[in-house]
C-alpha cells in the first residue's frame, strides 16, 4: 500500500467514520522510523516499545489540534524526541544514580540484548553513543543515523541550527576519539 500524504491522512482522521482507519495508517506509516530513533535512544526493545506507544497515544489526542502548515513527520518526531528524553530522565530518577551508572545500565542491556546483531565495532559505537549526554545523543542520532537536515532537527528540538551543528561536531569528535582508543571497548 502506498503512503498517503499528510493532508490526506489528516482529512481522513478528521472524519468520524474514517478516524480509526486513518490513525491505523498513520501508525503503520511512521512506526518504523520513529522506533529506530527511540530504540537508539533507550537501547532496550521493550522500553522502546513503551515509548513508541506513548508517542502515538499523544498523537491520537493531539492530532485534532495539529496545524496543517507543519510537517506531520516533524511533529511526530518531536513527540518521540521529548518522550525519549523524558524516559531517560525518569530512568535516572528511578535509579537515583549518576550519569555513569545509567550509561552502565544501558550498556549492560546492550550486551545482554538478544536483539543486537552488530559486531564488535558496532557494539563499541553504540557504547560510545551512550556516553553522550541525552540531548547530544539525540542530535547525533538524528544526524548520523537518520541523516536529518539541520532545519528539520531545529523544528524537532527547538534548538537553533548553529547550536545543533556545534553539538553534532563535538559529538562526532568525541565518538571518533573513543572509537580509536580503548576507553569504550570493555570487551
Amino acid at each position: 500500500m502506498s503512503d498517503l500524504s499528510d493532508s490526506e491522512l489528516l482529512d481522513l482522521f478528521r472524519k468520524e467514520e474514517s478516524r480509526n482507519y486513518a490513525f491505523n495508517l498513520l501508525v503503520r506509516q511512521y512506526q518504523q522510523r520513529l522506533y529506530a530513533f527511540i530504540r537508539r535512544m533507550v537501547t532496550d526493545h521493550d522500553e522502546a516499545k513503551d515509548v513508541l506507544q506513548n508517542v502515538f497515544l499523544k498523537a491520537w489526542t493531539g492530532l485534532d489540534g495539529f496545524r496543517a502548515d507543519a510537517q506531520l513527520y516533524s511533529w511526530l518526531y518531536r513527540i518521540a524526541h521529548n518522550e525519549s528524553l523524558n524516559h531517560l530522565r525518569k530512568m535516572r530518577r528511578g535509579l537515583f544514580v549518576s550519569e555513569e551508572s545509567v550509561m552502565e545500565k544501558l550498556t549492560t542491556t546492550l550486551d545482554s540484548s538478544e536483539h543486537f546483531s552488530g559486531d564488535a565495532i558496532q557494539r563499541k559505537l553504540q557504547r560510545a553513543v551512550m556516553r553522550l549526554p541525552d540531548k547530544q545523543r539525540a542530535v547525533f542520532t538524528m544526524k548520523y543515523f537518520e541523516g536529518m537536515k539541520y532545519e528539520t532537527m531545529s523544528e524537532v528540538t527547538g534548538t537553533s541550527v548553529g547550536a545543533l551543528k556545534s553539538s553534532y561536531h563535538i559529538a562526532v569528535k568525541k565518538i571518533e576519539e573513543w572509537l580509536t582508543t580503548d576507553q569504550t571497548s570493555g570487551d
Partner: protein
Amino acid sequence: MELNDGPDELRDAPVLHSLRGKDPFVVPDGFFDSFPHAVQQQALAKVAPRPLAPWRRVLRPALILGSLALIAGLAVRWPAPAPNDTSALLTVQDWTPEDLVRSGVDIRSVQTLLGPDESLMDVVELPDDDHAVIAYLENEDLPFDLLIEDL
C-alpha cells in the same frame, strides 16, 4: 527522509564514516504487524467510557430504588405539619396572677422562682389591716372562702 546534502562532516572521522548506514538493532519478528493494532486498542480505550461490570449494572438501580423507598417511608412516618395546624407550634402566652391561681399553680413556688422584683409581687401585695384585706377581696370578686382558709 530528508538527507543532509551539506559538506561531509565525517571527513575527519574515518571510523564513523565507515560505519555509517548500518543498523545493528534487531526488531522481534512481526512486531510492526501487531503494533498498530495494539496501540489503536489503547487509543480507543482512552476515548470510550469503560463499560460497567455486570454486578454494578444490577446494583446501581437496586441502590437507587432502595434509597427512594427509604425516603418515601420516612415521609409517611413523619408527615410535615399542615399549614393551618398550629398544634405543633410553640406558643407564648401571657399569664396574670389570677390565671395562675385558677390553674392551681403554687404561688409561693412561682414567687421564689421569679424573685422579689417581679411584677407578680406588686399585684398580690395586700394591706396589713384585715378589714381592708376583706374589702379588697370582696371588691376584686376573688374566691373568698379559699383565701380565708389560706390566710
